[in-house]
């Protein structure tokens, strides 16, 4: 039980430690900026949680994020209203998630390979469509999504809360979520139980795609550009957030709360290093070490349980 709470504990220690170590940490501006910085990874990681619970993996989310942001901003550039642009960005992500799901289930290719493939395909297409150039002509009001405030807190926090609640409800309170756990825990047993495994696996990838599309729009709003090169290596951070939060790459394990904690641990590590003047090169190494540490502690716990 103590080990299960370890990620929460770590987050709390980091929070208190940083409050003591730096006078700038516990300021409204800094905390808002942590939330804004982690929101993108956080929302992607929520989708990734679903995929990982169902025993899959999605390496293409970084590319899908760029494609979503690009399509959304291009729509605005062509005069569509902001809401339409955001919707287009989200749906673009959903389309590619669906494509990932269909390919893993229909062609029966390992999702690692499928999404490694789409990682390249989607990035390549984004670069072709944009000719490698970012989209700049975006209505100024679009910045509200990533940079605005609502009721005194960053707007993205509201978006994140809604997404987190949504994914939590899917995982814990719907048939889809239950099936995702079953498929991830033992796909053969799920199939033997008469569950439509392919359909639900595809659905999970599609939802991951939609959330990634949304994250792409937030990223575009923060940068106020549609970047075809956005989101590179974000997939690794999203996966890291899930596994730090107790998700298992073997499937059948993971939770929204765990993933949020995982993403915020990484966010605080990086924010704290900035505040304390630790070199960004060292930051990467620290985060890497934390991933290995978190997962090995979790493995130890599971081995003790013997399940």
């Amino acid at each position, binding site marked *: 039980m103590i080990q299960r709470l370890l990620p929460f504990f770590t987050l709390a220690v980091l929070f208190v430690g940083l409050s003591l170590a730096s006078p700038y940490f516990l300021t409204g501006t800094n905390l808002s900026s942590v939330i804004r910085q982690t929101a993108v990874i956080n929302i992607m990681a929520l989708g990734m949680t679903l995929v990982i619970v169902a025993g899959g993996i999605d390496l293409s989310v970084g590319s899908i994020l760029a494609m979503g942001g690009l399509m959304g901003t291009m729509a605005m550039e062509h005069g569509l209203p902001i809401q339409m642009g955001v919707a287009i960005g989200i749906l673009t992500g959903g389309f590619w998630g669906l494509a990932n799901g269909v390919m893993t289930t229909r062609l029966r290719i390992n999702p690692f390979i499928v999404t490694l493939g789409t990682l390249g395909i989607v990035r390549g297409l984004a670069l072709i469509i944009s000719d490698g150039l970012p989209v700049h002509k975006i209505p100024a009001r679009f910045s509200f999504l990533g940079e605005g405030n609502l009721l005194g807190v960053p707007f993205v926090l509201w978006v994140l809360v809604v997404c987190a609640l949504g994914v939590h409800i899917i995982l*814990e*309170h*719907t*048939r*889809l979520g*239950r*099936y995702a*756990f*079953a498929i991830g*825990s*033992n796909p*053969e*047993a*799920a*199939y*033997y*139980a*008469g*569950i*439509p495994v392919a359909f639900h696996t595809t659905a999970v990838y599609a939802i991951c795609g939609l959330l990634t599309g949304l994250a792409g729009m937030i990223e575009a709003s923060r940068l106020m550009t549609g970047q075809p090169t956005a989101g590179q290596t974000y997939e690794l951070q999203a996966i890291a957030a899930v596994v730090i939060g107790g998700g298992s790459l073997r499937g*059948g*394990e993971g939770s929204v709360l765990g993933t949020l904690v995982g993403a915020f641990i990484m966010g605080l590590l990086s924010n704290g290093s900035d505040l304390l003047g630790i070199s960004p090169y060292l930051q990467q190494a620290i985060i890497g070490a934390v991933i290995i540490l978190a997962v090995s502690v979790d493995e130890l716990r599971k081995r003790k*349980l*013997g*399940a």
Partner: protein
Amino acid sequence: MLLELRKVQKRFGGVVALSRGDLSVQAGQVHLLLGENGAGKSTLMRIVAGMLERDAGDMLWQGRPVHLKKPSEAAAIGIAMVHQESLLAPHLSVAENIFLGREPMRGAGFVDRGRMLRMAARLIEEHRFPLQPDWRVEKLTPAGKQLVEICRAVQHGSSLLIFDEPTSSLSESETREVFRIVSQLRERGMGVIYITHRLEELRAVGDSVTILRDGATVHSGPLEELPTGEIIRHMVGREITAIYHRSPLPPGEEVLRVDGLRRRPVLKDISFSVRAGEIVGLAGLVGAGRTELCRALFGLDRYDKGIIHVAGKPVQIRSPRQAVRAGLALIPEDRQRSGLARSLPVSHNLTLANLTAVSRFGFLRHSTERDKVEDFSRRLRIRAESPKQRAGRLSGGNQQKVVIAKWVFRGARMFLFDEPTRGIDVGAKVEVFELMDQLARSGAGILMVSSEMQELIQVADRILVMRRGRITGELPGAASQEEIMRLAALEEAAGGELLQ
């Protein structure tokens, strides 16, 4: 004497696999090793081949005591095994496999490929095997792979060759080919140990015989002097300890009717029916097609031909989903792999096949689910710390009950039990039998596959016997093990002359 084993013992954890294994094999002889499933034949042979270490007893090789710890040590003194499942490297060629680990070298660590191919060709030629040295092993049939293993054994200078059920995956003509090769090896003065399940093969190849039962050697001697009836008695002749007795019900309507079911090459023209309240046993040896029949009925494998009726209605079953919808349930042989989501709670496993019953518009109703889980856990006497306990942490018997409960909750009408008592202790076995009885009493039909003939005799109302993909006969529940064994192991045509 080439090989002699005296009072060899082997246990795995608490399970005694071999309590007294005696065996002596002479050079230039084919020695048959017989016994039921689980009698200890494979364990004994794995000890001889150095794949397992014995716990006690003596092993003499050409008169000298030996203690083998690794397969390579067995190979070094001249013992080789042709496995049931091929242990070859599939992507390498025939020649590369024959010489694997002993490639002819031309100094400095380079393989002399030319010489290797020539040597392999000579070896194949000598035995008149239908092989080419440069064929890739993955393209070969099971029989072809066995020939490669034989070549490898001969090339390594083995003087004792062990065949572990060589014909279980072979066609009739391939079987004849294996017999030809075995007698050829005998003429060259090699010793051969031949494990088999199939009594009709005996006379064709064997010189002498050792029969194992429940981990102990019960008979050893020349084959000629031993009538087949005597062999069967030795194989099954343990005392029947009745652990369960069921009083049959008057059977109701037909729940399952199968007409002319075929799936090449494992199922041939299978027809039978199961009525409500009936427990029908399905007996047969390994490879007879019992599991394949369950798989085809449950939509895991396609059938080529045949009509299936469930509760009087014709149904098309092409996936487990369709089978489940039709009212079928499969309690699979390997419940760890295909029956349970071990990392999930007992409750999730129990409701998995029928989540619609505990949800509304796709949303789960947790309180309803909790009530149902409690109810069914109590009814099926599942002993778990709590419904949240991970299914993988339950005992084998309780795991099996969770799998059964899943289907009861789904409201299945026809249950296919594939080896339902495998890996669970005696007390739990009785509980599983009682559950099956309860199911039958509540109007379900049950088909029960078991390799334990006593279990079938105790539990089933009637017993179907399969052999090589066919149902070879039907016996009343009170049949004797000898009757079952005859139908399961003997060639119908040859039956008359084999039985003395």
